[in-house]
Structures are given as C-alpha cells and as structure tokens.
C-alpha cells in the first residue's frame, strides 16, 4: 500500500514535471515576433556597448582594452559636462511645460466648450508629424530676422530674439519646438483619464458647495495623479533622449549650448569615430535616466499614497 501510494505520488510528480517541461508553442510564437528582434537589436548591442565602453575601438579590428580610461576622460571633458547640463535644463523646461499645458488643454476639451472637437484634433496633430519636419518648420518660425515668432513679438515691442543663434537662447528655441511636438500625446493621455473620473463624484462635490477651483484641486487633480505620474515619466525619458530637433535645428550649437548627451554621443561615434568613448557616454546617460526615473517614481508614489 505504502509502495503503491508512493508510486502514485511519484507518478503525479512526474506528470507535473512533464507538464512544466511541456512547450506551449503558441506562447513562444507570440513572444518570438518581438523577442528575437529585441534580443538581437536591443539586448545584444547594449551588452556589447558595455564591453566597448572599456575599450578603444574603431570598428575595424579588435577592440583594445583600456580599462576605465574612457570614463576618466569624461570627467575632464567640458563638452560632455555641457551636454549633460543642457539636458537637465531641457527637462526643466519641457517636462513641466508639457504637463501643465496638456492638463489645461485636456480640461478645456473635457468641459465640452465650443470648438472642443476641433481643439482636440489641433492639440494632438503636431504629434503625428515627424520630429525632423517639426524641426525644419521651427527653424523658419524661429529665424531671427524673418521668423514668424519674432515678427509677431515685434508688434508688442519685443526686439528680435536670436532663438537659435545665441548661446543664451538656443536651448529655449529647441525646447519650444519640443513642447509643441510632445504636447499631443500627453494631452490624449490626460484627457482619457479625465473622462474616466466618475461624474457622480464631481456632482457630489458640487452639491456639497465645492466651486470649480475646489473641484479641480480636491477631486480632479488627485484622480489624475497616476496618469500625471506616467506622463511625467514618459516625458522625462523622452527629453533625456532628445536628439532629432537638435540635429535639425541647431546642430548642438552655438558652442554646444543646445547639445544633448545623445547628440554628443552621435557626433563622438559617427563623426569622430570614437566608439569606446561614445559607449562610455551612453552608459552614463543610461545610469542618469535610470536614477532620475527611479527617484521620480518614488516621489510620485509617496505623494499618491
């Protein structure tokens, strides 16, 4: 009896083991379509990039191991410091602007004011245009002498601003174009979240005597916190990776005043062919994005709870 029970138990365990080992082919098929390209074009290059960061390499021939030299050189590279400082300024300009404006626009559309349907399309439309086209258009809009922006500013007595040709303004010039481009996605996300807020919650607040500002402050914004957290996170990551607008609008200049780390990495690798040094820069940017994202997520979680 004991032997039989043991045998059955063993057989059951064997079946369970067999079940664990059984392949669910359909599942693998589904993930393979994404998993294999992701492995080949993302994971492997990242791993290889970590390796290259500790070498001097010009693609042709074997990488020469140089230890931490590339990282040490970054500390004394003023252009790298400037690029990393710039991207923090970009984040400070773009992320709050996009979040606040997208929230305001979403509130406007959600209230169903006249032309809100048209506004919905207008607010989102820049996001469907490529960053390169946005950059080219804004180069003309922000031209110091002939740009539309300076033309209209002139009507209110503001002199021509060298948006893209001055070290004091170029970063803001690029940021303006980026805000205009990025606004659409944030707007749609926030609008969707607004429409999910239960109407009876707002109605109850109204019955209790809450005015529009109180309803916004005590009902709507707390309900929006999760989506605002997501918008800020996505926008932050996108801003830390800013490249196309800079490439098209300023080429990182003048004097590196609008360069971002990605742009600097691009020129270091593709123009100067310093692949080891560029990989080291990329790793530092990766760590920076990771740290900022984690800190930001922790802060939002604490606020939400």
């Amino acid at each position, binding site marked *: 009896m004991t032997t039989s029970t043991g*045998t059955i138990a063993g057989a059951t365990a064997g*079946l369970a083991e067999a079940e664990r080992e059984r392949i669910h082919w359909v599942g693998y098929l589904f993930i393979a379509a994404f998993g294999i390209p992701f492995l080949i074009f993302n994971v492997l290059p990242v791993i290889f990039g970590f390796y290259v960061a500790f070498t001097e390499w010009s693609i*042709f021939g074997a990488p020469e191991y140089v230890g931490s030299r590339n990282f040490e050189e970054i500390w004394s590279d003023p252009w790298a410091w400037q690029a990393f400082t710039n991207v923090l300024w970009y984040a400070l300009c773009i992320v709050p602007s996009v979040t606040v404006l997208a929230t305001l626009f979403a509130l406007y559309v959600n209230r169903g004011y006249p032309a809100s349907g048209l506004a919905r399309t207008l607010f989102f439309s820049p996001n469907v245009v490529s960053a390169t086209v946005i950059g080219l258009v804004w180069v003309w809009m922000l031209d110091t002498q002939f740009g539309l922006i300076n033309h209209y500013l002139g009507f209110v007595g503001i002199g021509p601003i*060298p948006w893209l*040709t*001055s070290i004091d303004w170029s970063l803001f010039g690029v940021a303006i174009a980026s805000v205009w481009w990025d606004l659409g996605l944030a707007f749609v996300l926030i609008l969707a979240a607004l429409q999910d807020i239960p109407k009876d919650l707002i109605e109850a607040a109204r019955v209790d005597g809450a005015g529009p500002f109180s309803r916004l402050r005590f009902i709507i914004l707390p309900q929006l916190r999760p989506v605002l957290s997501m918008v800020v996170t996505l926008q932050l990551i996108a801003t830390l990776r800013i490249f196309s607008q800079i490439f098209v609008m300023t080429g990182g*200049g*003048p*004097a590196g005043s609008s360069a971002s780390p990605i742009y600097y990495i691009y020129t270091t690798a593709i123009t100067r*062919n310093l692949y080891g040094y560029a990989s080291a820069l990329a790793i530092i940017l990766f760590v920076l994005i990771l740290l900022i994202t984690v800190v930001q997520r922790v802060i939002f979680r604490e606020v939400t709870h």
Partner: protein
Amino acid sequence: MMTKITNTPHPMSRRRLLKSGAAAVGGALAAPTLSTRVWAQSPIEIVHWSWLAASDGEVWAKSIDAFNEAHKDKGVQIKMELVPEDQVVTKTLAAAATGRAPDFGWGTAGKGAKLARDGVTVPMDELAVESGLDLSDFEEGPLNAARYPAYDNALYLIPMDLMSLQPEINLQHMAEAGFAPDAAPETGEELIEWGKAMTRMDGDTVTRSGILMTGSGVQPTVTWGIVAAQMGFERASADLKTAAVNPEAGIAAMEWVLALFDEWKVSTRDVTDRYKAFGTGQGSIFWTGPWTLNGYVGQGLDFKTALFPQIGEKRRTYFEEGGLEMYVQQDKGRYKATMDAIKWLSDNSFEWTTVGRGASPRKSILAMPGYDTAGHPWNVRGAFIEGMSFADIYEVPVLDGPEFTIYSGGNILAKTLELVWTGQATPAQAMEQLATAWQKALDKG
C-alpha cells in the same frame, strides 16, 4: 498491479529550445561573414559608395552612367550607392569589418590616415601602374597630398578634383554699392571696405551681411583658418611634431573674425543656413567652394567669383582634394578591375572638372582646348581654377587629421573657436586649449 509511469522526455524541452534558439541566432549572425559574395560572380559588378548628394552629385552620376554605357559589353559595371556624408566612414568601417566593403568610394586627401593605418584603404601606387594610369600626368602637389608619410608615403587616393574656397559676390549688391562689375577686393582693407558698402543695417542690427558669416559652425571656422594661415599661423609644423606654430598669428586671426561682427559690423551671427542665405540675397560676399556653382547658376543668381583677398602676409586659401579610394576586399582579384574603372573615370573627368566641381589635377585635362570655356561661365568658375595657385592650406595627414581641418563645424577646432565667437573664452585661452589638444593629437602619430 502496479502501473509504472515513466516520465518520457519531451522531444523539445525549454532548455533544448533555448539552446537551439541561441545556436540559431549565433548562426544567423555569423552567416554573413561566412557566406561568399554572390555579386562577386562574373560579370563583375564594382560597388561604389558616393556621398555626393548635391548638384555635383548629378554630374557624378552621369560619369558613372557613361562608364557603364562604355562597358556594357565588357562584363564590368559600376553599381553606385549613395551614403550620407557624415556616416560614410562608419559604414565603410563596418562593411570592411564584415568583409563587405564597397570596392571604391569618395575620400578627401589627408583625412584618411586611420583608414590607411587599419588597412581599410588600399595603397594604390602599384595598382595604378598596372592599370596604366599615368601618375606623372598629375600635378605634384595634389598627388603628394594623397599620400601618407607615416604609411610608407603610399598613395591612398586618386585625385579627381581640386577645390579651394574663393569669394562669391552678389552682382546686384555690387552695383547698388557702386562697384564696377569686374572689380574685386584684393586686400584685407579693401574687403572690409566692400563689406561695409554692401551691408544693410536696421539701427544697430545687421539685416544683410556685406560679408556672409554664421555665428557658429563651418563658416567662422574656415574663415579663421584661412586668415590665420595668411597671417603666418600653422596648425602643425612641417615634421608633424609641434602643434600651433606662431600662436600670436592665430590669436590675431580670431580677433579679425570677431571684428567682422562687432567692430566693422559687416556680418551678423543670426544666419543659420549660409547657402540659403547667399542664394536669397541675405549676404553679399560669401567664400565657399565650387560645389555651389551648379545650384546658384541653376537658380539664376546674379553673382561672380573672385580670388580670395590677401588679408595677411601671404595670399593663401583652403585646399580640398576630392578623390577615389579603394577598400580592402577578401577577393584580391577585384582590385585590378576596380583600378581600371578608376583610371577610366580619371581619364574621362573633363566634364566632372568643368561642370561638376573643382579644377582638374591632371595636366593633360587642364591643357585640353576649351577647358577654360567649358562648363559654367568663367566669371563664376574661373577663380576656382586660377585660385588653386595659392590654395595651399592642406589637411594635416595624421591619425586625428579631422580634428585639424579648418573646414568643419564640429571638430575640436570648431568647438574651441565657438567659445571665442560666443564670448565664453578669450582668443588667447582658446589658442592655449587648441595647442594642447592638437599636440596630444600629433603625439598619437
């Protein structure tokens, strides 16, 4: 009765799948390097990478078409592929590393030391002789510029065209300022006088540059490079051992460029696209290269070209030499066919060096009847031919040569000078930084 249930191994377990998958991925990645090049079969298709995408590219495409037409029954054809200029070195390196480099491509003399060191480009002296290309027909200076002293002084590029920077001048602006159509500024003082006469101001702001500049990038860098060289500055000594010879001249040239914006007020920093600005009349004098001629002539711009004025002790200007270089192949048998094709393109480069761009490096082509009258009118083309006599600001043929080039908007030189143009460093501080960076570059060899 006991039933023995055996745990039959499944024909494909997760571990096996992962192992098989990894092997398959590895195999797929390795396959391209193991496979043979199917296009290497007869008839030979010679792969050519070109980054000429502007109006000069159209002329070059015609040259390739002419080669293919002339060789359609001879089993050799050139397949030209366009590669963006800023990516061409990276792509060539990657292609060479995987054994799939193009057979030949465009290069610039003096900028390919790393490719020569790594064996990506192929020495061409013997191949040229084998193919019957008469190297003695080339001007000596351009041929030497295509050699690398550190690598057996071998020839790594067959010169195709010689270019220099010369001023293009808007004829309408000249007429408005009262200058005769055949006049041109000859000295630094005259240049500034001309610039002032053609500049348009709105209050204290320059709205049309007498001398077209940009606030950063290539234009102020190359201007500094030319003026500094005229004043006696050398980026590297002749033996390539010492950087920044005669730094005082380099500092004086930086001050000269700054004065264009701030003292003489003949230029504005607010121009972003220099080519477009000259084409739309936002500037009067614009020093640039012959690659602009097709575009400006095509759009009907009323302009002429003059010789670069003598601003310093000696009249000099930037020299650029375009040419064709060959890349390493697994099948060495392809070299002969490639060199034969390059020889044909060089021998038949009359149109390229009259309509395409630049002056011919070949004595026989320069001596051809009608060379002066072919292509664009002499008043727009002539300075680019005659001006070659004092175009002697060459590239520095070292591994980090691109960091020395004065025609750049993103190398160490350009970025350091931008600190001066934007007031973040004094000329003396910038010169000190440049000397340090360039010395380090020279020490690499």
